[in-house]
């Protein structure tokens, strides 16, 4: 009984995004029955790879899915969003490339070393944001505005070159596909980060602590939770997510462009968190919702491209669909729908009773 209730409560949050996803899938199936077909092709490096829209969508949404997981944690703990993820992502990419080029050669070892260095740098930058938010109690939007506006310049200073190139099979394996494995590597990165967070949540109380800090900081403190530490932790985890996403972004193209790497991803990440039914004011959260949100956004984009919508109109169509999803998931509409649902149920059971009496 309890489990069923729990299941329903969980589904309640995911209901709207799932319906949105379902409608998008249905729409595409009607429009083009072949939209979801998956094929096998040999890519230009001679490897067998899966192709087709579903692969394309899941692959392209990888960076967004990873960052929206981190964004969910920050949102839950701090009741605000980090708008500097794109800019710090550019810094992360810059550090990755700088360290990699500094080591002289691209091998598995140096790539791992560079990823670790990039991870460390990103965590430090995110902790800077975290300190402003958790210690100095500055609103997250304002605190992260600093790096939002200067992050890409910092990325440029680190490298001093507008578009450094990385030509190596290891890099393209990370950004595209590993020889012998037909599934794009970024998809595994999403799984890895998701799994990592799931394990952390399973074996620690971080998830519970994060929610309690987000719901009522004072009450959490009285119960022995240190809100500052929890908030800093959420930013550090976001840092890990950002560095993974930015390494994917760099490896995809085999070059770093600090102007376009993860550009505008902060807005999409916040949107993914919201579409996933998470409260942007903090508190309870569901990572699966945000991941779902990320795939919905990407599927919407791919659908519009597949429909060959004129470039001038793409953003407008996207905005219309997103407004509908967000409104459908808003508390007011939800409440109305729930009460309608309950009324019809009560009406139904009354009818049964009356029937029984009659």
């Amino acid at each position, binding site marked *: 009984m309890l489990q069923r209730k729990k299941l329903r409560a969980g589904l309640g949050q995911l209901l709207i995004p799932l319906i949105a996803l379902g409608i998008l899938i249905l729409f595409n199936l009607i429009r*083009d029955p072949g939209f979801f077909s998956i094929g096998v092709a040999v*890519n230009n490096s001679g490897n067998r790879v899966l192709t087709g829209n579903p692969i394309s969508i899941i692959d392209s949404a990888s960076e967004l899915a990873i960052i929206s997981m981190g964004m969910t944690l920050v949102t839950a703990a701090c009741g605000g969003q980090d708008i500097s993820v794109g800019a710090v992502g550019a810094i992360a990419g810059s550090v990755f490339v700088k360290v990699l080029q500094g080591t002289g050669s691209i091998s598995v070892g140096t790539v791992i070393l560079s990823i670790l260095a990039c991870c460390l740098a990103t965590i430090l930058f995110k902790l800077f944001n975290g300190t402003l938010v958790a210690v100095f109690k500055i609103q997250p939007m304002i605190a992260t505005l600093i790096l939002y506006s200067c992050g890409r310049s910092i990325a440029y200073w680190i490298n001093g070159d507008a578009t450094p190139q990385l030509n190596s099979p290891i890099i393209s394996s990370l950004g595209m596909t590993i020889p012998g494995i037909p599934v794009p590597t970024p998809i595994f990165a999403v799984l890895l980060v998701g799994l990592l967070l799931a394990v952390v949540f399973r074996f620690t109380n971080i998830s519970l602590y994060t929610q309690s800090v987000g719901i009522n900081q004072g009450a959490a403190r009285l119960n022995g939770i240190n809100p500052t530490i929890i908030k800093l932790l959420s930013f550090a985890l976001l840092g890990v997510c950002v560095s993974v996403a930015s390494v994917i972004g760099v490896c995809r193209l085999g070059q770093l462009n600090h102007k376009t790497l993860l550009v505008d991803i902060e807005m999409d990440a916040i949107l993914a968190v919201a579409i996933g039914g998470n409260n942007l004011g903090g508190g309870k959260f569901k990572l699966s919702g945000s991941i779902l949100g990320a795939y919905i956004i990407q599927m919407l984009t791919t659908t519009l*491209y597949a429909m060959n919508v004129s470039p*001038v109109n793409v953003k407008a169509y996207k905005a219309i669909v997103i407004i509908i999803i967000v409104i459908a998931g808003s508390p007011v509409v939800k409440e109305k729908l729930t009460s309608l649902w309950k009324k019809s149920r009560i009406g139904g059971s009354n009818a049964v009773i009356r029937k029984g009496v009659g």
Partner: protein
Amino acid sequence: MKKILVLTLALILALSAVTALADGIKVGIINLDPSESGYRQANVKNLTDTFTADNGYDATFVTAPTADKQLEAANGFITEGVQYILVSAAEATGWDEVLEAAQEAGVKVFLFDRMIDCDPSLYTAAVVSDMRQEGETAVAWLESLGLEEYNILHIQGQLGSAAQIGRSDPLTEKCEAEANWTIVREGTGGDSWDPNEARKIAEAAINAGEKFNIVYAENDGMADGVVQALDAAGITHGVDGDVIIMGFDCNKWALEKLLAGEWNYDGQCSPFQAAVIDEMIKTLEAGGEIEGLNEKNQIISDEKGFDAKTITQEDIDNYGL
């Protein structure tokens, strides 16, 4: 106390004497932020390499990404008493007042790279790129291939920007005029000319089964994004491939792809205006007149388009950004 005062005064006098002695041509250069792009980086470097003390200049450089900072810098230069101001404007409007003030103060203004919307009499000369000509050169090259069918995947830049309009219009006009020229797909990399967006557009087109034999991307980054999608789908490209790849800007890495035969064409957008302006200033200083300006006081940069079949390592070294 008095001693210190006298000493300072003497020092100031000595210093001003020294500055008066080092009488290079005083130039104030206002540019955009070098981190903006490979183009800007090359542009800033070109100017700093040319306007040196050895070349007879006393130049001050300001790089600012916004119009208000640039205007502030221009006003500063005028009060400082420079002889020449060189500007690449962040915004095309709002410069009239400053330019008039410069004219009154006898400061000559040169525009480079970007035009300003004002009366041509307010500046001495403008050394700029003609984006439309870049588009026309590219389309003419494409036509010279003499293909039977032109099925084009067109990736546009930031919609409404001078570069996008100039590079798009000749292509769309050609496609409207010729029966065998078709734009099968049109997309945009958005305000940041995002290669990733270009990749997604190409993926969607490939997945929808569209057949195209030409990729016309309005900068190198977006061309590279499309190439990633082609590579993943196993579609060959370049000199011996099925799809012709065209880019713009002539980044060094892009020209190297041309040399390797992976791409076919790259159109130049020259960031090298310093030599032309240097020559004009020297002419003015020698009491001469500047020649070769059009009715808008412009000099249009001479720009090339590179073909993968004829490009050499020397071209990459000379023209790569």
